[in-house]
């Protein structure tokens, strides 16, 4: 299952990339711990495609997703919305069991261990 970018999001990402004047830049989407629901989305521009990255192409946009985030983002749709609260990217994530009010963080429907760190 891949990821999709809506027309509005593709237009916005393309506009942001053009402002950067660096043709090597791609949008990186990642998940990290945080927010009201446990995991939060992050967006950044990156010119380096890392070895364990998954590169997703949709509507002419290349998205970079790291190996740890891809399982939590599979099947997601990235949209760009304007509302009274402002403009922002919105991720519709089928893996999210619940999402916080602002939409920036989520809890996976199947909450496994998100971290394989060593214990004591």
């Amino acid at each position, binding site marked *: 299952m891949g990821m999709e970018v809506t027309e509005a999001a593709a237009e916005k990402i393309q506009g942001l990339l053009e402002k950067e004047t660096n043709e090597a830049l791609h949008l990186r989407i*990642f*998940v*990290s*711990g*945080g*927010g*009201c*629901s*446990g*995991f939060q989305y992050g967006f950044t521009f990156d010119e380096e495609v890392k070895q364990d990255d998954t590169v997703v192409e949709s509507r002419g946009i290349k998205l970079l997703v790291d190996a*740890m*985030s891809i399982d*939590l983002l599979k099947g997601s749709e990235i949209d760009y919305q304007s509302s009274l609260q402002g403009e922002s990217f919105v991720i519709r994530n089928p893996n999210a069991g*619940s999402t*916080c*009010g602002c939409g920036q*963080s989520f*809890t996976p429907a199947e*909450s*496994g*261990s*998100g*971290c394989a*760190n*060593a*214990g*004591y």
Partner: protein
Amino acid sequence: MKIPSISTVASKLLQSEHTIVWRQDWSILKASGSDIRKYLQGQITQDMGKLTAGKGIHSFILTPQGKTVSELYILEGNSDELILLTPSDYAVSTVARLRQFALGYQLRIGVVDTYSVLEIQGVQAAKKLQHFDLPAMESAWLTTCHAGDIHALTISEKPHAFWLIGNTPELETIACSNMLDKDDIEAMRILQGIPRFGTDWDEKIYPMNANLIEFDGVSFDKGCYVGQEVTSRMHWRGGIKKRFYRVKLGGVPETLPCPILTTAKIGMLTSAATDAEGVCFGIAHLPIEVAESDTPLSLENSTEVNIIETCHA
């Protein structure tokens, strides 16, 4: 049903010397990593910014829906480590939950089986700290200090009580006299009006309805953490309907927990204990509206229930 009671011996020791008890009901976790504080800031109800070398914090871990996963006391350890104390029954689930959202962080979090918690309580309790070369401690709640691998935390101001956290064999060197049993320590908790997660309340109750504010377990200006949406809404939108109260009882309850009545059931007596004179006190979960009125309260067997105060740190 037998309810816990504080023995005359224990009562005298508290007023003249000190008492010692192993707190096996608390487990010790250690957490470390370059961004452990940043990570925990997004996981717990209290502000990690309040944690300093001389002051610990009290906090809770919540589900995204705002219900309690576990209770924590956090203090600074050695070498950038943090020491987390959590009820033993919840230690494994606390570690699992803390690891669950650690994606993108380099952390170590785990139970330290070789460590124990030893409680020293009483008017002369501070003197026992000298055994480990610990400095004289302030009596303020959650004051901390350490000497080598032994860490001390002020857990009660009246009567003065410390938790010593460290390697079990090292702590055993002072655990040889004035030892209390579980019955005494449970009675002391109830007489002091300290509701216990897992006994007086559980994950079905929102912690805001379990004196989270009174036990300094939450910050409302720290920003996002898991469960923050519900917790903040309850605080700012008047959602706190119940609290725990320390109550004096006209007799001994027949069962626990047991309903508290006005003309109908309005709350629960969740714990009860008798003091050295045989007077029965308890911890009751009651609607604030009823507790703040002068409505007479009783148990089902007509035992009188009189509110003394809101349970607090």
